[in-house]
């Protein structure tokens, strides 16, 4: 693959979508569909989580099957903070990011010494260990999870209303996408992508490959931790299921459907997958069959993901 380059219309389009998102809660309320504000928040949060995985997977070339562990860690930190009497998101969210980032540092420091299928298995193993840890932690609710007593405040403002939490999630997503968008064009992002393309060559050019990968892995973990803390506020529960490998798989599917290595791949994938689920669940409990067909179609007709269909033409179909 070539180095990522944003299409020229990408900036105006994302600004337009941002404006639409800002108006969404008002519009939904006016249409008497306020119920969907919570759903839209969920989409934003998963867009954030999937984008953080896309940094690791799409730009860093690290196929992690344990990314949900950082999502879950963030959710638990939020719940535990509240249990400890900290109800301010400005404290709890950075804490969630720090804990998830530290966890990612440990996981990455070990697993990034392996390659290919071993890396997949080790990240999976770490995530499952974390899952069983929380399942067996009685004081944190065991397999029932740890509930929150209502939502936190953000800088003193309550997130109790669906609108407020929606805007908080939107702010987090916009900040993360701004960072990722700058990052992939900056020195760090170019090095990261070049490592994905040819690790040996980068080492032979004098780059400490391991350190670059680890930093990207930790950054991805931190953003996933933020998504987890937001999710706990949305659902009112930090559940061990958030750390399950199936959750990691869902994030992977989002990135693959959306577009691996495309800046907005995670966002597009989260929107498509969650809207599909929301729509189909109304018709049949077996909506996963349709999801399977969709995945098949993506792999066959848009192997680079949906975002790639709209992305800039790339001259990298060769060698």
């Amino acid at each position, binding site marked *: *693959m*070539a*180095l990522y380059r944003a299409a020229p219309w990408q900036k105006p389009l994302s600004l337009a979508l941002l404006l639409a998102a800002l108006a969404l809660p008002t519009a939904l309320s006016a249409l008497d569909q306020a119920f969907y504000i919570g759903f839209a928040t969920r989409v934003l949060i998963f867009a954030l989580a999937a984008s953080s995985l896309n940094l690791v997977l799409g730009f860093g070339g690290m196929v992690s099957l344990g990314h949900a562990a950082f999502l879950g860690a963030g959710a638990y930190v939020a719940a535990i903070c509240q249990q400890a009497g900290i109800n301010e998101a400005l404290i709890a969210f950075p804490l969630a990011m720090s804990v998830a980032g530290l966890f990612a540092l440990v996981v990455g420091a070990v697993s990034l010494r392996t390659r290919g299928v071993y890396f997949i298995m080790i990240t999976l193993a770490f995530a499952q260990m974390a899952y069983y840890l929380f399942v067996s932690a009685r004081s944190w609710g065991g397999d029932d999870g740890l509930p929150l007593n209502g939502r936190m405040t953000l800088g003193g403002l309550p997130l109790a209303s669906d609108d407020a939490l929606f805007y908080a999630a939107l702010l987090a997503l916009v900040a993360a996408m701004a*960072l990722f968008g*700058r*990052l992939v*064009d*900056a*020195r*760090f*992002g*170019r*090095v990261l992508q*070049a490592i994905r*393309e*040819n690790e*040996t*060559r*980068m*080492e*032979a*050019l*004098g*780059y*400490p*490959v391991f350190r*670059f990968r680890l*930093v990207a892995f930790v950054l991805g973990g931190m953003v996933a931790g933020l998504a987890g803390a937001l999710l706990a506020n949305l659902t009112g529960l930090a559940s061990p299921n958030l750390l399950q490998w199936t959750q990691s798989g869902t994030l992977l599917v989002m990135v693959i459907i959306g577009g691996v290595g495309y800046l907005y791949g995670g966002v597009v994938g989260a929107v498509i997958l969650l809207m599909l689920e929301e729509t189909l669940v109304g018709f049949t409990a077996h909506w996963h069959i349709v999801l399977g067909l969709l995945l098949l179609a993506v792999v066959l007709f848009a192997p680079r993901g949906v975002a790639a269909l709209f992305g800039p033409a790339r*001259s*990298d179909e*060769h*060698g």
Partner: protein
Amino acid sequence: MAEALLEVSRLSRRFGAVDALKEVDFNVTAGEVHALIGPNGAGKTTFIHHVSGALQPDSGRIRFAGHDVTALSMHRRVSAGMARSYQITNIFPGLSALDNVALAVQGRNDAGSSFRFWRPVGREAALFDEAKGYLEQVGLQDKGGAAAGMLSHGEQRALELAMVLATRPKLLLLDEPMAGTGPEESARMVELIEQLARRVTILLVEHDMAAVFRLADRISVLVNGQLICTGTPDEVRNDAAVRRAYLGDHL
């Protein structure tokens, strides 16, 4: 003799039952072109892998520019001034030729940290200006925008050389730079290496004997993991053991 830039002493490495390298003593003097030759399977590439840090020896020391680098990883040796090309072209095929070289410039110690997350590289004109200079040195000034994978084989070899140069090495490790190139490209590569040799020390592994005898100040001969001879081209040409082991029917 001038000071040794690279000093390898009693380097050994076994792969299972095979002695790939046996107590190899070898040095490269600053400023020279030192060619390492030997029949297929003699251990030349294995030797280069050990010098560059891609492989670790079972025993022996490697000193470079006055420091023991035996335990250093590859990227640290590159920072210390050692750069290598590969027998099989090793570039970023999906990236433009210019981006390939710009990454090499960016990786250098004096180019500043690459842990920069915000400022677009596109605004760092110095990086690309310098990269263009290296492309020009290898005759690829018109190919900067082309995807590296689309270049001809000879152009890809030249591109790899430009990347290696961009690391501003003290010592160039060239592993069969002529491999797979046609006669014309080969002649251009010899000229290029001749020019480079005025500025940088070169350790050259090559099968093309005409090129070796034209370029090398000294030649070492490796056979079955053992160094059997080191000397000037004339000494090596007339060495009985070398003739027996290797050159006999070539010269």
